[in-house]
């Protein structure tokens, strides 16, 4: 039945090589380390608390000095030695510099709040402090989890970064109907999702014509917001802390 398939595929020369630059890798590794070890005190933009703006200072400090601080901590403060290796600390340093270059500055949080709560339509899908929709990521405390640059990117291009637990699908049924929702689980015989209407829905694959992963249902706000208004919204979201 499938005899010869292997040979054909092999001869076609499968060479799906992708290479990532060292900088991109450092950023992502450094970002993961930063999220796990540093973000709790310093915040996603490196601007929380007594330490002040460490992202801005990372740009000013010489590389070795910054790595030394990341590894050894700062005597007399709450920052104790991190136990990171020199290599790991280097990736965190690279990440901090990237954060500094990618931040959103300015913006009026009160104006941003007005837009999010009313004309923006955001709370149709997102919730903040228990108010709003169920289908999209909960934005309560989002300012403590996401960099301002990430929030800006998601507003301009919602598909730029979609966490795996927020993938949306269209379940096209054999009876002609389509159920759209957030995918919760799937296996060889069934699919489980939260429908756009907020209902837990299980579908047997025997009833399913096709399951299609779709782009995020969130519209881009690039055309609806001036760059100033965009900064307002981002500023407001960064103020949301638990």
């Amino acid at each position, binding site marked *: 039945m499938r005899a010869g398939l292997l040979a054909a595929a092999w001869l076609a020369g499968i060479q799906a090589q992708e*290479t990532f630059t060292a900088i991109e890798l450092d950023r992502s590794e450094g970002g993961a380390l930063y999220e796990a070890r540093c973000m709790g005190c310093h915040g996603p933009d490196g601007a929380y608390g007594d330490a002040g703006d460490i992202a801005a200072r990372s740009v000013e400090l010489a590389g070795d000095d910054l790595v030394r601080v990341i590894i050894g901590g700062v005597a007399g403060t709450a920052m104790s030695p991190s136990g990171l290796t020199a290599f790991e600390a280097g990736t965190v340093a690279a990440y901090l510099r990237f954060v500094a270059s990618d931040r959103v500055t300015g913006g009026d949080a009160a104006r941003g709040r007005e837009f999010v709560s009313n004309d923006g339509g955001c709370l149709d899908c997102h919730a903040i402090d228990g108010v709003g929709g169920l289908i999209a990521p909960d934005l309560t405390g989002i300012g403590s989890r996401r960099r301002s640059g990430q929030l800006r990117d998601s507003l301009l291009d919602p598909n730029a970064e979609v966490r795996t637990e927020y*993938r949306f699908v269209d379940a096209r049924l054999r009876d002609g109907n389509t159920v759209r929702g957030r995918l919760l*689980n799937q*296996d060889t015989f069934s699919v489980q999702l939260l429908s756009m209407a907020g209902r837990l829905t299980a579908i047997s694959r025997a009833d399913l014509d096709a399951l299609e992963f779709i782009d995020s249902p969130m519209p881009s706000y690039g055309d609806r917001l001036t760059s100033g208004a965009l900064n307002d919204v981002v500023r407001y979201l960064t103020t949301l802390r638990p």
Partner: protein
Amino acid sequence: MNRNGIAIVLTAGIAALACVVPASAQITAERLLEAADEPENWLTYSGGYDSLRHTTLSGITPENVADLRLEWVYQVRSRAGAAEKFEATPLVVDGVMYTVTPPNDVVALDALTGRVFWIYSHTPSQDARVCCGRVNRGVAIHGQTLFMGTIDARLLAIDARTGRLKWDVQVGDPRLGYALTVAPLVVKDRVVVGPAGGEYGIRGFIVAYDVETGEEAWRFNTVPGPGEPGNETWGGDESWRTGGGSIWVTGSYDPDLDLMYWGVGNPGPDWNGDSRPGDNLYTDSVVALDPDDGSLQWHYQFTPHDEMDYDAVQIPVLADMNWRGEDRRLMLWANRNGLLYVLDRATGEFLHGSPFVEVNWMDGFDENGRPNQVLAPSEGGTLIMPNNQGATNWYSPSYSPETGLFYIPSWVDTFSVYTKRPVEYVEGQQFVGAFPTMAMPALGTRPTNVRLPEEGYGAIQAVDPETGAIEWMFPMTDVTDSGVLSTATNLVFAGGREGYFYGLDARDGTMLWRQSLGGQIAAGPMSYAVNGRQYVAIAAGAGLFVFALPE
């Protein structure tokens, strides 16, 4: 009446009765050799020395498999989370089932009802180090003695009647990462094991102990030292001392050739070979040893100078068939590196190699079977197929002499991005390099699956060993760590991470029966009979499930 029909009369003075051991209860070396003659029993990890994982019991057929129903369940007493997978294949000897629940509890059950005769519980030392869960793949039996390896690197001999410890030996130092997870292999009067720990910079070996006394009989170093052949393939600064070469899945034995075969694990450090230039024998190889003295008779290396963690720790399947016009004694090997191999098991001659999933790290073989490697880990990261966990792994494939097909539990369309980073050896710590990316979790720890189709999926694939062609594929949304059992009646039993256990038609992969067991299947199915009635057993999640047709 007990199982053997001997009346136990509770009368004072009949002391002699208690000492009578029915002859059928002794597992002699002869019975192990002729295991195929007693299909109602399952005497070794793979069901027999040829490791076909095939039953000739004929009660369950494609016509009646849909009537299979659950007979009993045994639930593990210790916590069995995702990292303490229940990986053991039970043995059945004359109505008594012996298995191991994680991490190191040996349990003797009535194979008819699942009720406990005894439990021997070994508490591993705090020094134990494992990379991938506190697991154990089962016991071996010889005479009236069971053998189990422990995660703190001890080999225990336990009386099969009473569960009492007879002897134990320390096989390696757990503080340096040595552990035993393999189900031992008994050949003649020796019990053979090897250590896990390829992620800890161990120096691997295969070791044989006397079944009666636990005295070491011989040792074969899977990573040769100075003066031992193959040591010249370890360049750098004494890289052989931390060369890896672990052993963690049971080997096979050909009594006519008198050769014992074992698959050897990855070299260390896993993901950066710069400190160990050379082919790094005998990592990622099959070695054929003389069972009397452990001397090497031949070897074949699947992945020279491996930097992708492609352990050759798979079951050597010893199949005899008419292969391309000639009757041959073959070894079938579905390797973690994505290639299916056919070797002559008498000489180690490479006869055939072809991919059974998409493979991009090599693009062909030379006439000696050496792969031509085209991709390797790099500082910038390289996308390599199959992924780090492999196209298949330690879980058992099956060969059916009836269909002539080789059944491979597979991970399809997977990839990892491998990045080269500096590595330093620190005693007792992982000695690996930078972890490659994996689109799917290596150990199945998440309860929900929201992966995209292009991130990979699982399947049972039926391959023609003459051509390498895939005759049929049974796909599953999630991947599988399940072994495969084939039957002479043309069924294939297998499962996967979703916890479904399937009965498929061995000829075309049609699903004839399935049962949701609610926990990942990370063990091999087996079959046995009691009083002429056939059972199929499989570990899933935290339970051992046994099925049979209604009486």
